[in-house]
């Protein structure tokens, strides 16, 4: 035991350890990951069938539909963000390391975005074509999703952390988090509408970027604090 070298790992090492672990976990449970994706595709593809297959309508509503579906799909996947770590005690071990908890939380959120947000982003052009969106509009839609989906993961993590200690957290997350998702949704769809109407979108994009920067800096700290509260009971 005394022969072991014990140097405190660097923050980047801690980050990559947690990230690697979460990605391995996600890969082993890949069938769970497909769930929100299928939900995303189904919601968007049911819209033309349920409302109207008219090209003019779909062009008008397309971006909004894709955005709402992406938002709900993320919401579906949030409950699992900390649940299994809470159940098997991994979360206790994370809190009891001398490392700052928000680094580990940030790694977990980044992993969550990589396995839910990025696939949504990759699927969105296909759905965009289905909604008769112009090529230029699809590009803007993808850009807004690129900026917006990390916000969905970051803000959602706060809700997931607050409700992880409760036996029935699912509904509560939605109620807590949905109001905070509204600004992202408004600016996300607003950008695409503006692009479709040939208006400049820089201002919208800048605002989305600002929301991302804000949540990137605040959410890990808030999530870490929420996790401590959930575990101390």
């Amino acid at each position, binding site marked *: 035991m005394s022969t072991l070298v014990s140097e405190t790992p660097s923050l980047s090492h801690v980050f990559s350890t947690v990230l690697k672990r979460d990605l391995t976990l996600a890969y082993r449970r890949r069938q769970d990951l497909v769930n929100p994706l299928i939900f995303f595709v189904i919601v968007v593809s049911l819209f033309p069938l349920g409302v109207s297959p008219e090209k003019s309508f779909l062009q008008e509503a397309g971006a909004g539909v894709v955005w709402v579906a992406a938002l709900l799909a993320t919401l579906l996947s949030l409950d699992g963000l900390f649940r299994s770590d809470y159940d*098997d005690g991994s979360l206790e071990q994370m809190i009891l*390391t001398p490392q700052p908890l928000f680094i580990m939380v940030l790694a977990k959120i980044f992993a969550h975005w990589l396995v839910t947000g990025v696939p949504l982003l990759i699927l969105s052009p296909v759905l965009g074509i289905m909604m008769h969106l112009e090529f230029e509009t699809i590009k803007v839609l993808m850009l807004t999703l690129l900026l917006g989906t990390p916000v969905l993961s970051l803000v959602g993590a706060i809700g997931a952390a607050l409700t992880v200690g409760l036996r029935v957290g699912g509904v509560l997350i939605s109620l807590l988090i949905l109001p905070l998702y509204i600004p992202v949704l408004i600016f996300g769809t607003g950008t695409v509408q503006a692009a479709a109407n040939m208006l400049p979108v820089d201002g919208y994009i800048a605002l989305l970027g600002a929301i991302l920067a804000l949540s990137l800096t605040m959410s890990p700290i808030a999530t870490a604090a929420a996790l401590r509260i959930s575990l*101390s009971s």
Partner: protein
Amino acid sequence: MSAVQPIATAPTKTVSTDIELLRAESLFCERDERVLFEDLAFSINAGEIVQVEGPNGSGKTTLLRILSGLSGAYEGRIYWKGEPLSSARIDFLSNLLYLGHKPGVKAILTPVENLRALMGMRQGVTDGEIYHALEKVGLYGYEEVPCHNLSAGQHRRVALARLYLSNDAIWILDEAFTAIDKAGVKALESLLADRAQQGGAVILTTHHELKLEKGFRKLRLGKSQEQAPSCVIEEEGRR
């Protein structure tokens, strides 16, 4: 009622280096309007093994969670090396190994992946050391088997392998012997004794009869319906 109970005399049978690691003063905790313990005071020196004993529901796990800093639902003061726990928190966590009821082992990861993740967050550990530790806990040949294919005892052993990788000053082990077979328990007992010899402190709960040559201390959390909750510290030693 005195605020601080006399702290138990330094054990004569253990190799104590007389460095006080953890000290608790007038701890009070209640849960669901039942007082689990009150006016609890004790200290743990380097090189000591302390077993927290008591019937189910007497607050053993709660006490360990409070000591490790996981739970803040208590009144009283806890000191780490003479400093209040809240201000010495980073140093305390750098020297703590906590194994809870829930061992933090992921069922869909292999033992090696589990240890890599658990240790990677704390200290630099090479894969060689991980394989070595797994061999020590009797998991040779199971390194790459997903943990859900392991038995309950083997699952527990994955978590216990951390003890062989740890050089933390204080170990807090909650029900560490659960599901471990007789030979495994014996190996663990000797590991704990070695650990104490080297100056590490161990606090543990178990319903198993501990057999340690050098002796150890017992912290008894008692309660009965009529009497006030009490705490007795006594020494237990065998030659």
